[in-house]
């Protein structure tokens, strides 16, 4: 589980300051996205499969003699609720949410930890769910967009997105809302420039960044008066 101590999302508060180097390439310095492409995630998975001890160390119950590639029991704590699933160890957290729990707010777009449409919050920190294996996410508190506000209500960040038209097609929006929420949880009083720099880990194709920038600042202001 050591990997979970490293940030996999540029908005993660634990990342090193972004030097914005690499000739204008978008990067979280000290932690390349390329290190976290799905391939490496699968490699971790394979290692885990081969080692029942690791699984046990990670708190995963393993039937005697069974360690994949077939389904294994997986317990996920999502939005405060425990879910017991049976998944192949290679299933990502994103696919577990979408395909096995019908939690479809998070989207798969790039599938390579680049675009952020799959952003969820793990133990209070934003992660790209497309590059976290479901088995890795066990024992951690997982928060998805479905869990940040009661039914029929909007989280202040979502409300700010609506009010500032920070969305068009809306396909990137769930991921952005989660990245913004996580950011504001850790940085409740950002400046405009700080917010801009911190939210470079999510991409939008329609070009809604102007609205998102306004939404972040407005949500920050509103949240000072209390959260949902």
């Amino acid at each position: 589980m050591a990997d979970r101590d490293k940030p996999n999302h540029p908005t993660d508060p634990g990342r090193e300051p972004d030097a914005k180097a690499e000739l204008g390439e978008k990067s979280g310095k000290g932690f390349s996205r390329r290190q976290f492409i799905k391939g490496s995630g699968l490699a971790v998975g394979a290692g885990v499969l081969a080692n029942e001890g690791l699984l046990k160390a990670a708190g995963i119950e393993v039937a005697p003699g069974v360690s994949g590639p077939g389904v294994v029991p997986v317990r996920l704590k999502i939005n405060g609720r425990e879910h017991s699933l049976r998944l192949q160890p290679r299933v990502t957290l994103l696919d577990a949410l979408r395909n096995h729990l019908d939690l479809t707010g998070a989207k798969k777009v790039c599938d390579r930890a680049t675009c952020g449409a799959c952003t969820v919050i793990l133990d209070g920190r934003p992660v790209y769910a497309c590059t976290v294996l479901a088995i890795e996410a066990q024992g951690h508190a997982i928060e998805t967009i479905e869990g940040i506000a009661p039914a029929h209500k909007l989280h202040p960040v979502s409300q700010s997105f609506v009010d500032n038209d920070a969305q068009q097609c809306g396909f990137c929006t769930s991921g952005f809302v989660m990245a913004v929420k996580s950011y504001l949880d850790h940085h409740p009083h950002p400046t405009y420039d700080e917010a801009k720099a911190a939210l470079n880990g999510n991409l939008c194709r329609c070009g809604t960044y102007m609205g998102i920038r306004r939404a972040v600042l407005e949500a920050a202001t509103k949240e000072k008066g209390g959260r949902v």
Partner: protein
Amino acid sequence: MANIAWPPASKRGLIGKSISRIDGPEKASGRAKYTYDQNPASLLVAKMLTSPYAHAKITALDTSAAERMPGVRAVYVFNGVGKEVNWEGHEIVAVAADTEELAEDAVRRIRVEYQQLPYFVDDADLAQAAKDGRARQLGAETSGDPSTGFQQAEVTSEGDYGIPVITHCCLESHGSVAQWQGDKLNVWISTQNVSGSAGEYAQSPELNVPASNVNVDCQVMGGGFGSKFGVDTWGLAAAALAKKAGRPVKLMLERKEELLMAGSRPSLRGKIRVGAKRDGTLVAWDSDSWGTGGMSVVGIHGLLPYIFRGIPNRGSRYTAVRTNTGPARAWRAPNHPQACFLTMAALDDLAAKLGMDPLDFFVKNLPLAGERAALYQEELQKAAELMDWKAKWHPRGDKAPGPTKRGVGLSIHTWGGLGHDSYCRTTIHPDGSVEVATGSQDLGTGTRTVINIVAAETLGLPLDGVRVEIGDNKYPPDGASGGSTTVGGVSSSTRVSATNALNELLAKVAPGLGTTPDKLEAVGGKVQVIGDPSKAISWKKACARLGTTPIVAMGQRNMSLISSGVGGAQMAEVSVDVETGVVRMEKMVAVQDCGLIIDVKTAMSQVYGACIMGTCYALHEEKIMDQQTGTCLNPNMEFYKLSGLDDVGDIVVHMMTDSAIESRGVIGLGEPPVISPGAAIANAVANAIGVRVPDLPMTPGRVLDALGKGEKA
């Protein structure tokens, strides 16, 4: 009687105001269900095998190992033995299985043998294309006498310019979920063409389903930009797999497939010569241009020079080049961004050679820009004011010390609009509730909101007094959303339909109010004698007079409410680090007219978004093809780059909205503002660093190359 004409500004309660999109809460809470999110019971997932080669003949195909795998439910062959595949990503087989992972495993078990065939993917190499018989001149155009024109010219500028193939890169990839219920087919499909899709399924002999048995659903969709008009081979495959398996099937393209085969914008490259008198008056133009749209022969002939069609002596020739790359599809403002970039860059280079401020140069030549010359001038002046152009412009090459150079550039553009054919149905129920239905789609532009605003305004109701139903082909048909035609179509059909329904209601209510329908209006949730709120009844009471039968009234697109043809001016300010070659868009100003604006908020978002999308193709986007292997080097989002939130500067949008412009009626806005950014940003870069970066996107490498060549020159 209510009249269909748009209400005057003084009487508008909703139209022209800034209103939040009505599906915003669903989207911002993650509750909106896209095609990709549909998970009907016992769903299968399909994955595709596509060609790894640019051009090959399939000599053997064995799917038996895949079919034997437990959990694999159906296989569909797009292109079998003997067929040719003509680009990397060309579809071969799709497999439906119980899970996504299993479908991927099954695809890996399929054995295909290929006979590789000659291919060509490097569209920049016109000479090779000609040698291979892949270049075809689509037309030549001459006006006046170009050779005399260049003799008259006192200053001539010549340059090569290029804009590459880019992709649509919709965040929701192309795809559908197909489900059979007996002989009825239900599909959820991410489409720009809800009403037009059933007919495509009906044409498939394999599916053997009449259009009347096909239900198409698309409540929200994750981006199209011109690439999602058809159901596509993979849409038909999903329906065929579902039929074979007897279970619903979801087939969404993988990101790589999306970038390889689901839409690209044609390239445009060319050598341009342009001449002017010393005072800046344009007298001559000559261009030899070419581009590729993949294997289909497409082109922009007739668009060069862009806008400045009145240059007295001009010649232009365009050649279409066929390459083994994924097919071209309409990309937001088809062909205009390319033609705009080549033209405005060439003119800006000439202005630099003349030693003129390009603003003065463009304004001086606006008489050659046709019917919208006066509007362009007004828009350029407004843009200059918002950019502080006169203070920021300097002759080419920022002389400020240090590695960061700043510059400004400009461009103008035009687009049509009008409205696609559209039918709308308004139902007023006896309890006062209202629904408005049309088989349209909301691509994220705000279509649903616009319909709501128009209907509510027409009926004198608040927004939530009307329920909008779109995204389903059971509603009256509405055209495909392309070419900025949607708002014209739906706003006029909605206006007519709601007016017709209202007039039926007024006729029922008038006797009870002791008057005639022509003396009544619906306003503020009441039906009242025009201008006399004392003689009124509430909307609810008025509708109660209907007894038990609702009013149902149709409306169709109406040309008196809409129009075509807009202009726009954009200015960009950039900073360029001449040591690293990194360009940053610091500020953009976009001044745009679009007739009568229904919703200012979503209209502004269209323009903001277009400036950002334009920044993406100016600085980052390129489908990079490798002639050595025939494959695409960046079919993913790490290397097919889009701008991030911190990569774009400030954007100032000014919508032209005087009464003369509003009197033209509604005109679409999706295309026009995305045309100029490439040209404006490229011209700003030339202004900053003193040399032209001839090809988009202006990557650090290309900027450093241009600087290097500039030093040698």
